[in-house]
């Protein structure tokens, strides 16, 4: 279950706060997956008590967009901590879907990859299994296939440390890279933080999801939760 609260001393009108929290949640807490399960209790709430002396932030205030963005980035930091704690997880993985025709399609594809048990176990095993990533893209629950063009899709692993080359291309314009540097792949997959980049090449929208690997420890923890 995900529970969270954010509190602030900034005065924010309730309608503006509601809008900000929804905006932030759709770009943070609604973009994480540990195991693909949704709880009956998930709740994030926010209270703004207005304890500092300044003008109340409303939807038409000059500061609205800025505060909304600050809250969104703050919520992303908090949401990412939940993924980092993913039961038994050893890796924090950013799934970055770029150049989609629509934001919704990018998000659905990112979620599909993030929820794939086989992608997550491959990450645990440090196996550069791009086939499982493509498979998860292929069964993503899109309304239509306008964002998908097999001949334009690119899939890469991105190193999150300063090592070079940062990007390891696994699929280039729909064609598997048969000369993948397996040694470099192992180096990137050995990192605790890594990124999977999917470039759909059909538009300009981007979405991110944050996920983790699935480990033996997950089964141990969840095998006897009630007792």
């Amino acid at each position, binding site marked *: *279950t*995900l*529970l*969270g*609260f*954010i*509190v*602030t*001393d*900034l*005065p*924010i009108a*309730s309608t503006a*706060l*509601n809008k900000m*929290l*929804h905006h932030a*949640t759709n770009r943070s*807490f609604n973009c*994480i997956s*540990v*195991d693909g*399960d*949704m*709880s*009956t*209790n*998930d*709740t*994030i*709430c*926010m*209270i*703004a*008590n*207005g*304890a*500092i*002396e*300044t003008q109340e932030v409303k939807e038409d205030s000059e*500061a609205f967009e*800025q*505060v909304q963005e*600050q809250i969104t980035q*703050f919520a992303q*930091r*908090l949401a990412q*901590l*939940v993924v980092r*704690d*993913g*039961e038994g997880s*050893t890796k924090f993985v950013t799934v970055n879907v770029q150049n989609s025709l629509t934001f919704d399609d990018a998000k659905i594809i990112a979620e599909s990859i993030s*929820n794939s048990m086989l992608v997550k176990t491959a990450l645990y095993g*440090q196996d550069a299994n791009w086939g499982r990533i493509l498979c998860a893209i292929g069964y993503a629950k899109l309304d239509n296939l306008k964002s998908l063009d097999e001949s334009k899709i690119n899939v890469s692993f991105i190193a999150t440390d300063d090592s070079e080359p940062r990007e390891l291309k696994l699929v280039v314009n729909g064609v598997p890279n048969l000369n993948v540097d397996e040694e470099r792949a192992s180096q990137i997959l050995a990192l*605790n933080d890594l990124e999977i980049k999917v470039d759909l090449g059909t538009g300009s929208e981007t979405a991110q999801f944050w996920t983790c*690997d699935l480990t033996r420890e997950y089964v141990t*923890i*969840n095998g006897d*939760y009630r007792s």
Partner: protein
Amino acid sequence: QRAAKSIDKYALYVPQSGVFPKGFKVGAIASGVKKNGALDLGVIVNTNKSRLSSAAAVFTTNKFKAAPVLASKQVLEAVRGKGINAIVVNSGCANSVTGELGMADANEMVSLVNTQMGGTPNATLVMSTGVIGQRLQMDKITNGINKLFNENRFGAHFEDWLNITKSICTTDTFPKLISSKFKLPNGQEYTLTGMAKGAGMICPNMA
């Protein structure tokens, strides 16, 4: 065999200090719901009286919503997000799939805190997390809430915020607490503090 070795997440991700917003105090207690005697009940209180507070929340879209989710939604709708001055949270029992009795328990938690805060109705939100399908041990929850207020176990120091964050944890390996100061275009500074719990059953889609 190639899989990464586990890392000390507590040391990596739990802060040792923080900045906290004015006009809030927090308290946490081990009510006894958790079998191991760990902190399992927390309350956040807004003490600022200069303005009416604003509140907003997003909730699970799971068709089987737990009693605290329904109770908090009702409170928020009743006051249209205005004048919420407390959040009460327990861990160890989710009060989910508990029917009318669970709903009564969630409302009782809200009512207890409202009474302790001066009696204003619809001023408290409630959350629960833990095992699904078990009733809350309301005797322990009631004692815990009353003890927090009657013994004034509230504070606004880093340790207080860390403790309330710990009190909402279940299988978490570390409490998730972050805080930051931000600047408005007019130069005025404000503070955000956030707490979260969760390690498994995580793929929220809240609205």
